[in-house]
């Protein structure tokens, strides 16, 4: 009974060990050129001290909204991944691969649109003005 869980424990230990090893390795081997921004608690550019009721840049919301959509669309890849072996066994690997690539291409078109329209530009004022004008 308990022995069934040994692979699980093993993978947990490996995951934790790998994370710790990599962190330590980065500390030992990585170059260190600290500056004020890098040493801040959040590297996102937000000042962690001060009133929390400041108005944020609208760009945060924009990125967050885009993230929600792309994040959740990936939910369709899970059922695909789970049943992929069955499709290969049935000799239908080509069809199922084509369909999932089509799905990714459609998502990619969304990303292309987003990039081209400046949805991911944080500092390009030209795009920002264009967005506000609309």
């Amino acid at each position: 009974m308990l022995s069934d869980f040994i692979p699980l424990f093993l993978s947990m230990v490996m995951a934790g060990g790998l994370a710790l090893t990599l962190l330590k390795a980065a500390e030992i081997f990585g170059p260190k050129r600290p500056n004020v921004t890098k040493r801040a608690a959040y590297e996102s550019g937000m000042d962690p001290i001060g009133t929390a009721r400041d108005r944020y840049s609208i760009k945060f919301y924009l990125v967050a909204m885009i993230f929600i959509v792309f994040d959740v669309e990936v939910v369709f890849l899970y059922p695909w991944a789970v049943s992929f072996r069955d499709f290969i066994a049935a000799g239908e690997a080509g069809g199922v691969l084509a369909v999932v690539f089509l799905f990714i291409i459609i998502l990619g078109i969304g990303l292309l649109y987003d990039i081209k329209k400046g949805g991911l530009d944080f500092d390009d004022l030209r795009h920002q003005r264009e967005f506000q004008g609309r």
Partner: protein
Amino acid sequence: MEISLDWYLALSAVLFAIGVLGVLFRRNAIVILMSVELMLNAVNLSLVAVSQSIGDLSGQILVFFVMSVAAAEAAVGLAIVIAIFRKKVSVDVNDFTLFRY
């Protein structure tokens, strides 16, 4: 011990009712949006429970679609709320009274 389907359906009905009450009685557009999401997720719960109990997968497929639709709806809804906040500096639905009868 097996939990019977009725309990799942009852929990889902309670969650759904909480969502409906939230939409009806809260006046903040964001909170209304959150209540709608609660309604959708309550439905997801009953879909999964029913699907499991009758051994038919199509209900769970629908849940995937509901999740992605909820995300798209949230994105569009937040965009609309941002647009109206820029115009009115308020997200209180009582302030949106441009049209009457």
